[in-house]
């Protein structure tokens, strides 16, 4: 029932299959999805394929470049970089997959409530968005990072999400404001549908495309932010491994032992690039105004 409601009130052009078809028409999207699938597969299965584990040292190989035995080389304590990079990728993806959608969720709730309810609630919402927007968010992240980093990857994801929802919330609010005056929303209200249900069933589905794109691009942005935090030296605390912590360790010896830096950095770029390609193609397919949907 909920599903038919959703399709009846939103996405006037077509349902999900049409969107997917339009998305995949762009070659960029196909490349993005294929690469992303490989990346996820590598993160899930990659470490299993190796005989090494991320925390024990190979005492016969300290700081060695890539060999047949250690595919990505080893770090200065003899740990296998291939396994460490892929295990780190798992953590980074986990942070991204939590923080991206979470910040979108915060934006959706805050924006929809403010825009739909209007009045005093809306004024508080606008104030909150403006306030959060003028905060120097990366420094606050740096401030929170040591505490969050000790608490684990979930806390890092939470901190990143809490400081990154504002721009989207502003967009959602503007959309919800204009949706409020649309006939189907008015009708639902006069039929006595409770406010929460109107938001859930009629307002938010209308914004679904916007939110999906934002969540996808949010994953890419979060993976980057986590890596940057790690590079600054304030990412996850040991023994946790993420692309950020690997890059922090690797950048110190980027000239003398380049593989320690370039394998994690390369994987990071590939992951972010593939995710952005998918997000971009989704936006083009979902947004009728970009005009590329039919190309």
């Amino acid at each position, binding site marked *: 029932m909920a599903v038919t409601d959703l399709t009846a009130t939103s996405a006037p052009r077509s349902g999900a299959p049409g969107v997917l078809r339009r998305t995949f028409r762009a070659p960029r999207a196909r490349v993005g999805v294929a690469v992303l699938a490989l990346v996820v597969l590598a993160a899930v299965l990659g470490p299993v394929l190796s005989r090494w584990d991320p925390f024990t040292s190979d005492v016969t190989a300290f700081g060695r470049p890539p060999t047949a035995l250690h595919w990505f080389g080893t770090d200065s304590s003899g740990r296998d970089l291939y396994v460490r990079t892929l295990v780190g990728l798992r953590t980074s993806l986990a942070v991204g997959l939590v923080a991206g959608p979470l910040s979108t969720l915060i934006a959706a709730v805050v924006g929809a409530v403010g825009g739909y309810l209007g009045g005093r609630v809306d004024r508080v919402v606008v104030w909150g968005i403006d*306030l959060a927007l*003028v905060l120097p968010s*990366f420094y606050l992240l740096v401030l929170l990072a040591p*505490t969050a980093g000790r608490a684990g990857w979930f806390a890092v994801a939470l901190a990143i999400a809490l400081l990154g929802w504002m721009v989207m919330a502003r967009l959602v609010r503007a959309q919800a404001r204009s949706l409020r005056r649309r006939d189907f929303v008015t009708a639902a209200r006069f039929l006595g549908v409770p406010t929460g249900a109107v938001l859930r069933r009629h307002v938010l589905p209308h914004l679904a495309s916007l939110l999906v794109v934002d969540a996808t691009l949010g994953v890419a942005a979060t993976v980057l932010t986590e890596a*940057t935090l790690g*590079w*600054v030296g304030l990412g996850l605390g040991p023994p946790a491994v993420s692309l950020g912590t690997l890059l922090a360790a690797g950048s110190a010896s980027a000239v003398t032992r380049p593989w320690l830096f370039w394998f994690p950095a390369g994987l990071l770029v590939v992951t972010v690039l593939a995710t952005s*390609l998918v997000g971009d193609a989704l936006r083009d397919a979902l947004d009728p105004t970009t005009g590329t949907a039919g*190309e």
Partner: protein
Amino acid sequence: MARYLGRRLLQAIPVFFGATLLIYFMVFSLPGDPVLALGGDKGVSDALAAQLRSKYNLDKPFLVQYVLYLKGIFTGNFGVTFSGRPVGELLAHAYPITFKLAIMALVFEGVFGIGAGLLAGLRKGKLFDSTLLVVSLVVIAVPTFVIGFVLQFFVGVKWHLLPVSVGSDVSFRTLLMPAIVLGAVSFAYVLRLTRTSVFENLTADFVRTATAKGLSRPRVVMVHVLRNSLIPVVTFLGSDLGSLMGGAIVTEGIFNISGVGGTLYQAIRQGSAPTIVSFTTILVIVFIAANLIVDLLYAALDPRIRYA
């Protein structure tokens, strides 16, 4: 117009207080005791600790500290760090450097982003356009520290084209490479934004009218298309000034620049609350000011916007 500006200023006041209170609260609730940390392993005697606490108002309740702090800011007294240096001195040293860097980055991303975006928008779908689009995606996907490292290594170390780091020599020449690194990501955004905007405006009625009344192509493009396309771009650039100043931490680290990023990073590591709060408060003011400027530019660029 003046009334509109006045209203925006009034709106900024609660935002300012809310933001500073939030920052103050976060710094206040940081784990660790800065007074005890001063003594290191030896520790600090109770009497000295109490004396320091009362000197820095650390023994007062949270809200009282906040109000005292704000009073200090409005009278130009930013407090002293625990090592005895006035925070005002640190601010006066760091902010001009980062401001210079951010302005250079802004000019770089504005000039090159708008230029490339305009060319791409005019040739949408062509090879030139798709190439630029892919380049912009790559720039967004590569972390700043990688771009910085690569540029520094090749341009600075291998080819000796530009100085490797800034240090105490802050000049246009030394800041050029850091500015490009700092502005790189925003350059990609400006490019994409301009491109979309130009492409949309090319089919607008006012452009058809301009062409129909016989204006030359360059005039139509530069005056009618570009001016209208710049509205969202200028909004982005304005708000980006704040982000650039607040996001220079990585760039400043790579190129050894003693600006806001470096100082703030040190302060956060040492838990030096007065420095953290002062630096972030000024950043908040920069953000608010940048937003106000954007609003004004908006009105200047878009004749359809009239503020009652």
